[in-house]
């Protein structure tokens, strides 16, 4: 493991920001620390950086314990949430700062800074001050400034939080490309799961100072290990029970149920594709149809429960009030102990993925 946190605990007064955090990150990975605000994810990042000191546990980088190594000597590039660009320095001087501090050769500094400026595509803006740049440009400068001294590890605290939605999408892609190009091990903090899923190789989910789950976006999505992860990832409806749903007779009492839009299929009764599954079908009534840009979001009332599903725009037109056939492929069941997937028993032997 390239970066490791071992049994890390941290308290701020009575507030526990980290409870026994353990994880390891391989070299070259781009990892997201994902969690709701106040979950302790930023504190974990700051402890890695050395900007905060853990109460107990070890921070390891390249196999060495760095607990007593000050932030300035850990060789880490850090991109702050609001970039923290030096207001009274030009773009050039901002990027050059780390190299100047290391007392690098003047010519080398110049070459490196110009290389960085062309890497981030801000040629010609090197004499500007931070407040003369757009949000996206500032973000780029902050990135360049952090990696200019060739750090071994790049940490980013909510790197997209201060940017408007339109630019954010482009910037995510840009940042991912940049990090791959530079090939630096990177960890970023975010509260936005879409962002984490899109950008990161691996996601670490943090809640109330605890590490809930770590894994690739798809594995976390498909196999949530804790109730929190099951609820936090994806859009989901939480139901108290599944009484009356065909194929879920064996669901024990006392477990809550999570249903995601992609677990639900709604089709017209004459649809031949689903002919073999009619024994598992429930009847549902369309309550609303919302256009979501590239698909429709249908809300259906089934057995007195409201379910949501997404419908391709290529499919047949549906109306509010229309009766539909509804299939519930699978659900997540969870209680305080953990979460599990439960498939519809009546669909056993049918290859749903081949549909």
């Amino acid at each position: 493991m390239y970066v490791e946190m071992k049994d890390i605990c941290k308290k701020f007064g009575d507030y526990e920001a980290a409870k026994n955090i353990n994880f390891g990150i391989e070299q070259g990975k781009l990892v997201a620390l994902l969690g709701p605000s106040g979950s302790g994810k930023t504190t974990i990042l700051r402890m890695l950086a050395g900007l905060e000191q853990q109460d107990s546990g070890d921070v390891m980088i390249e196999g060495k314990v760095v607990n007593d190594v000050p932030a300035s000597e850990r060789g880490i590039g850090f991109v702050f949430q609001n970039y923290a660009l030096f207001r009274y320095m030009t773009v050039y001087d901002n990027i050059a700062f780390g190299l100047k501090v290391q007392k690098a050769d003047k010519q080398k500094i110049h070459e490196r800074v110009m290389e960085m400026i062309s890497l981030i595509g801000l040629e010609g803006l090197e004499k500007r001050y931070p407040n003369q740049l757009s949000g996206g440009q500032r973000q780029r400068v902050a990135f360049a400034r952090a990696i200019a001294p060739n750090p071994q590890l790049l940490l980013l605290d909510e790197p997209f939080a201060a940017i408007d939605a339109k630019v954010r999408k482009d910037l995510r892609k840009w940042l991912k490309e940049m990090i791959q190009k530079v090939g630096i091990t990177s960890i970023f903090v975010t509260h936005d799961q879409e962002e984490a899923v899109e950008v990161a190789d691996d996601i670490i989910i943090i809640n109330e100072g605890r590490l809930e789950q770590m894994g690739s976006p798809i594995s976390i999505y498909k196999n949530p290990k804790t109730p929190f992860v099951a609820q936090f990832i994806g859009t989901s409806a939480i139901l108290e029970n599944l009484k009356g749903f065909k194929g879920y007779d064996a669901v024990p009492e006392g477990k809550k149920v999570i249903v995601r839009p992609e677990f639900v299929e709604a089709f017209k009764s004459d649809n031949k594709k689903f002919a073999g599954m009619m024994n598992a079908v429930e009847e549902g009534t369309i309550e609303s149809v919302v256009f979501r840009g590239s698909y429709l979001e249908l809300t259906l009332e089934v057995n007195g429960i409201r379910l949501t599903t997404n419908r391709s725009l290529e499919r047949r037109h549906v109306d509010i009030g229309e009766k539909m056939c509804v299939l519930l492929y699978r659900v997540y069941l969870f209680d305080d102990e953990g979460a599990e997937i439960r498939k519809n028993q009546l669909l056993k032997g049918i290859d749903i993925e081949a549909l």
Partner: protein
Amino acid sequence: MKQNSQKIVQWILIGISVIFFLLMLVLPLFEVIYRALKDGLESYGRALTASNTLSALKVTLIATVIAVIVNTIFGVIASWLVTKFDFRGKNVLSTLIDIPFSISPVIAGLAYIMTFGRTGWAKPLIDGINDALGTDIALVFSVPAVVLATIFVTFPFISREIIPVLYAEGRDEEEAAAMMGASGFTIFRKITFPHIKWGLLYGIILCAARAFGEFGAVYAVSKARGKTFTLPLEIDALYMAGSADSITQAFAVSSLLVGMALVMLILKSIVEYRGKMKDKE
């Protein structure tokens, strides 16, 4: 209609303010200048070049310069400490800084006498130091005493100007610089100082203005006219002498102080203006 009534309120408020300023500030100041020049330029010049006046001017300038230097260093350190670090007793410290604002200067002066004076507890200590070094420093009724009293009184001005700026700025930029390996001094010089530059200058001006106008604290520890008197004390002494001549002289010396204050006021406005322009950039 609403616009009109707002206009009326505005003019009434302006009127009240102008009348207040005229009566309370401008007229008395004109009176000072008028009285100072009443007996002609020659006697004005004589009053300003009297040996007591020159001595008082010297003491005032010494006290002001030292107070500004000491308080600049202390003020920057204290505000840096209060805004950039978390430690126990931080709130106590930031309250302590304000003490000179809330305590009457006379009490400060008296406290110095009680501590360092003939019967004060620190007297043997100072005597010991004087014996050991062969010096003859007295911390009451002397120029060093005047300097100390002035430092005490003007002590919060600089930190009070810088602390809000440092708070508003946050710690991000310093942390960013630290992450890149910059030392504390480099961080201060390259990152923090540019932020507080204008606030610091403004604080220095306020501190200086207050330092040479101080009366109460200095009055308590300075009793030798022509030796340890500052300008305000000299003015008081001249005025208290009571003769028509000395009263005119008192006004002449006052006009000197008013002049210095005006210079400070103009400097302050320039600094404020430039600071604002800088922020807008």
